[in-house]
């Protein structure tokens, strides 16, 4: 296979179809429209179901139904739409349904703007839905990685029976890059629990449910979920370390900004400043351990985000006071340049 030039959103949609997505439910919102459009054009042709839902609320509940009935299913949206999906995401987590949610983030709060931003880190990793639950969050830094993470998302969701979100900033959705999409068939996990209708011949009724009226049962359910999240935290952390071996300073960034930070690092290295990059690829589970270990070797860290500072709180938790953790961010669709990052780093050099 050779690489083809594709827009991020279309590559994400194609990767989902290649990964065996059975059903897609979406609602228009910029900057993710091309995902819905691509799905409407091609998913039915490959035997899947496409529905343009009446709202994001309905779309995620269609996902809940299709996933509960055993399908490999996905929805996509952007920030205000992801906010509306939170009820359904909580239900999917509660009923332990595998599904994939693609979030192509834009600026907020409220209607915000349509340009790329990372102000939804908290929404993705903490969730806006009710209850004790976790959603696996994968954060690609480009079109190729976005397609790989979509595939990975289906696998992880079925392996753990848990919703998985692929959160990319609007840059990734809208830019074109050369990609090669993995078309190997993705193994189908057995779903003996799915409500597929054959209750009588199966001999047992399959019920998809998140209601436990008995407090003992609900606590046991919460404990079982927590154990699952422990396993996920133990096994599924993904983090990229770049020029960290000899680094005196660690920059922490995810998504598109991590690429801008890399340019800044190269510039600073040429000036003799030993800077490295820690790039979380999974925002949940977060690389707490790796960042904590890195804190033993650097003088300080600086987190760069397209927000007013969200992931930085997790970085501070990870560092646990070992070294200072500074922050530099832009928001609203404004994107920093490498020089802004180097200037931010240099402003903290003197006093250390």
């Amino acid at each position: 296979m050779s690489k083809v030039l594709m827009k991020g959103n279309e590559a994400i949609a194609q990767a989902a179809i290649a990964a065996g997505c059975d059903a897609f439910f979406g609602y228009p919102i910029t900057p993710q429209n091309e995902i819905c459009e691509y799905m409407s054009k091609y998913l039915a042709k490959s035997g899947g179901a496409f529905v343009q839902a009446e709202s994001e609320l309905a779309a995620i509940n269609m996902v809940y139904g299709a996933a509960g009935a055993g399908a490999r299913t996905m929805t996509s949206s952007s920030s205000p739409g992801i906010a509306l999906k939170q009820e359904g995401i909580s239900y999917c987590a509660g009923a332990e349904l595998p599904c994939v949610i693609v979030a192509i983030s834009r600026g907020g709060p409220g209607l915000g703007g349509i340009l790329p931003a990372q102000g939804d880190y908290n929404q993705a990793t903490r969730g806006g839905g009710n209850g004790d639950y976790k959603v696996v969050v994968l954060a690609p830094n480009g079109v190729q990685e976005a397609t790989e993470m979509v595939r990975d998302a289906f696998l992880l969701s079925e392996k753990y029976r848990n919703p998985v979100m692929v959160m990319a900033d609007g840059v990734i959705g809208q830019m074109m890059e050369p990609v090669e999409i993995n078309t190997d068939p993705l193994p189908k996990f057995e779903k003996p629990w799915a409500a597929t209708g054959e209750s009588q011949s199966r001999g047992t009724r399959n019920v998809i449910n998140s209601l436990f009226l008995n407090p003992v049962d609900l606590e046991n359910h919460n404990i079982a979920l927590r154990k699952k999240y422990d396993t996920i935290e133990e096994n599924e952390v993904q983090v990229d370390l770049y020029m960290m071996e000899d680094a005196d300073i660690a920059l922490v960034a995810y998504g598109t900004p991590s690429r801008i930070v890399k340019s800044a690092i190269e510039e600073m290295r040429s000036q003799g400043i030993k800077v490295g990059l820690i790039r979380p690829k999974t925002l949940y589970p977060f690389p707490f351990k790796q960042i904590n270990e890195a804190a033993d070797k650097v003088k300080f860290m600086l987190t760069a985000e397209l927000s007013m500072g969200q992931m930085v709180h997790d970085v501070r938790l990870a560092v646990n006071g070992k070294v200072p953790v500074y922050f530099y961010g832009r928001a609203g669709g404004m994107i920093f340049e490498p020089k802004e990052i180097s200037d931010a780093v240099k402003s903290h050099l003197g006093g250390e």
Partner: protein
Amino acid sequence: MAVVFQKTKGLTDTPFTYCPGCTHGIIHRLVAECLEELEILDRTIAIASVGCSVMSYEFFNCDAIQAAHGRAPAVATGVKRVHPDKIVFTYQGDGDLASIGTGEIVQAAHRGDNITVIFVNNAIYGMTGGQMAPTTLPGQITTTSPYGRDVSKQGEPIRMAELMAQIPGAAYIERVMTADPVSVRKAKRAIKKAFEIQKNGGGFSMIEILSSCNIGWGLSPVDSLKYIKEEMASYFPLGVFKDKGASQ
């Protein structure tokens, strides 16, 4: 000894959680008998909603999915689109369907999804303790309309069957009641017809059933049945409001 009556195979052995006198139980039996008689129990997925019938996934003897408040039709769409050959129905109350879930019910009909909706209208929020619903009758006392529903401030009750009949995508819409043996038999015929339509790929069907909430209404079970017949049925007329099959 000859068997003269047998509980339908469409129900599990789990005891109902409904108050004595509540007609939710009768409606469950009617739905379950239809599933058994149409021989579709082994290919049916029930969508339970939020209300007194939230535990219906424990009562219907088929696969089931419990849906968020008002979202059952969207969940049903998700199931039906990946299992077009299966029978999918929702079981929803009037708070669920006519208040928080108006968007979902209208749009499922609009898409013409081949599903069946069992809509239990008891003019009240039974589950949460008897608050006013969009279907609460003018002057009716509830815990949030303690002086009686004032239509000048709280609007006039919404007639869902009439509203749904206006949607081009809806195939079959009928309103029935469970007030006496005759009306119960008629209700069963309507429910059966709705499932037959789905079985034959006929499209979206909704049966609205006027039902009692003796506890929420503060009436005896017998007076509740009278209330259905005399008060509810005069505001919510019974009948077929849409039958695409008949008009073709």
